[in-house]
């Protein structure tokens, strides 16, 4: 009987040692109980000495220490043995407070991701300068009045398309910038009213706009990066305007939600089918191939909103009903909100 267990145990050990990924078993006090041999290679733990040691005594990276307090998803840190290598660590809780840490080498993925980002950033920059030249000549042609009348329509259309390409490129550049800045946004004071009113006025003055109503709590201010917050507001309002008919209504709100704050845009537009909602913030994702291109979207607006919000520790909520309209909400946490009134008063309100 004991022989059978010994054999079984040996087999389990041989098997776990053959794994490429690292595994560490931790007890409820975060002390190392056991790990396989991949961990020695990935993290530099010593099987002869490190059992019983608290895991964050040896894996000391601040990101891991913070993740350990509140393990959600996974954390990526440079390997303590070689800063060029990146490791993704995931803590899986089980039993009575024990947990299993799974460690994967993600150096290749991270490098690929970086290459992709650099490529998009470089390509967008390179494409922008020839576009500026084209658009300059087009403007000269359109204003010159030397061309036969039959050329007027093609030139206008070309101008429109060049404008569109310029918007796509600047959106792409903006998005890559947001993606590559991993840290959270700064905490600069933003007067939301001063930011929102000009955007509201800009859209209201357009000839074919639906009715836009703006309701805001002028005392409620935000801490963040002004240009990114501007992007969030502008893109959401722009989307609402594009998908709502002239007879429709758009409600823009900036209000408290307990100690937190919400910016929301509700329209009475065409709505989005439920199956599209999970993917709608992906770049270039189109709900309907035809319609958004007609209305001049770049396909990047929501991706920008999502990333900019993430940098502000915020969350995007989407509710939509076909034919009735959609509501997009940006939820900013308490740490990002400044309000002169005391929290008690807010609850009463």
């Amino acid at each position, binding site marked *: 009987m004991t022989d059978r267990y010994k054999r079984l145990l040996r087999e389990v050990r041989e098997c776990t040692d053959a794994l490429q990924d690292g595994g560490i078993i931790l007890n409820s006090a975060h002390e190392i109980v056991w790990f396989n041999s991949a961990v020695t290679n990935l993290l530099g733990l*010593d099987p002869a000495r490190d059992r019983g040691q608290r895991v*964050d*005594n*040896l894996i*000391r*990276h*601040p990101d891991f*220490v913070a993740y350990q307090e509140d393990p959600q998803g996974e954390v990526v840190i440079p390997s303590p043995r070689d800063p060029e290598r990146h490791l993704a660590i995931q803590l899986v809780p089980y039993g009575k407070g024990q947990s299993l840490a799974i460690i994967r080498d993600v150096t290749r993925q991270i490098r690929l991701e970086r290459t992709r980002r650099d490529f998009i950033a470089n390509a967008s920059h390179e494409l922008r300068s020839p576009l500026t030249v084209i658009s300059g000549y087009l403007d000269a042609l359109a204003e010159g009045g030397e061309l036969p009348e039959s050329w007027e329509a093609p030139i206008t259309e070309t101008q429109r398309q060049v404008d569109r390409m310029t918007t796509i490129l600047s959106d792409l550049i903006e998005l890559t910038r947001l993606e590559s800045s991993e*840290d959270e946004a700064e905490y600069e004071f933003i007067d939301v009213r001063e930011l929102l009113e000009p955007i509201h006025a800009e859209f209201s003055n357009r000839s074919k706009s639906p009715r836009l109503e703006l309701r805001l709590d002028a005392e409620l201010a935000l801490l963040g990066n002004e240009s990114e917050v501007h992007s969030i507001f502008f893109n959401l309002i722009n989307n609402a305007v594009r998908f709502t008919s002239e007879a429709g209504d758009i409600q823009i709100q900036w209000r408290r939600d307990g100690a937190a704050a919400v910016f929301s845009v509700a329209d009475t537009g065409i709505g989005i089918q439920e199956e599209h909602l999970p993917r709608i913030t992906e770049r270039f994702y189109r709900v309907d191939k035809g319609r958004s291109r007609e209305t001049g979207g770049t396909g990047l607006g929501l991706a920008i909103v999502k990333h900019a919000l993430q940098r502000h520790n915020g969350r995007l909520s989407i509710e939509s009903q076909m034919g009735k309209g959609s509501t997009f909400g940006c939820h900013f946490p308490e740490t990002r909100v400044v309000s002169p009134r005391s929290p008690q008063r807010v609850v009463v309100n």
Partner: protein
Amino acid sequence: MKSGHATHSFGENLESVRTAVLNMGGLVEEQFERATRALSEADSELGLQVANDDSKVNKMEVSIDGECSRLLAAPGATANDLRLILAIIKTITDLERIGDEAKKMGMLAAGLAAVERPSTNYRDLRNLARHVKEMIHRALDAFARLDDKEALEVVKSDDIVDEEYETIYRQAITFMMEDPRTIKRVMDITWIARSLERIGDHAKNICEYVIFMVYGEDIRHTGLENIEAAISRANSKQKPSVD
């Protein structure tokens, strides 16, 4: 039974302070890593961020210091415990200083990001920084594992850092004499090298506290031969138990 419980929780508290020291060490390592990256990638924003984040390190020092005062006043500490607490109080001072040096490096790197870079992109400095980073990392590992052998190795490796610093310093003088227009930049580089050298010394100090914790002998300022002699003397006696 009751007193048994009390000593048990003393041990637990001590252990959690030890972990806090190592977490502080992790933060300092990261600060150092980012300061170095700010230099090599000419990232002025990152450099200023490092300078800004130094307050986190300072806060941790204050909090650990408070914990140690409480532990010193608590009953039930053994000689070993007291040695550990003493070593912790000293270690966090050195860690805080490393944080200060990283802050200086970050500010200098932010300034250097704006000026012309040498074709080597500060290869000498980056090499020195790599050695120093390894020293900090190994010192903290030795602290976690109470590993006197590793600690001694780190103490020894400080000589290499000192030599590299000396080389950079001499080179800097030559540069400044050749072309006085470079003086401002080269001075900044020398300051960074100086910070790196100081950080190496702080890592070395931490290792000396580790040896003190393990053997109970103060080996500071005694020279390498004496340190080794002290260790072998202590080994021939009974090594005091660590746990």
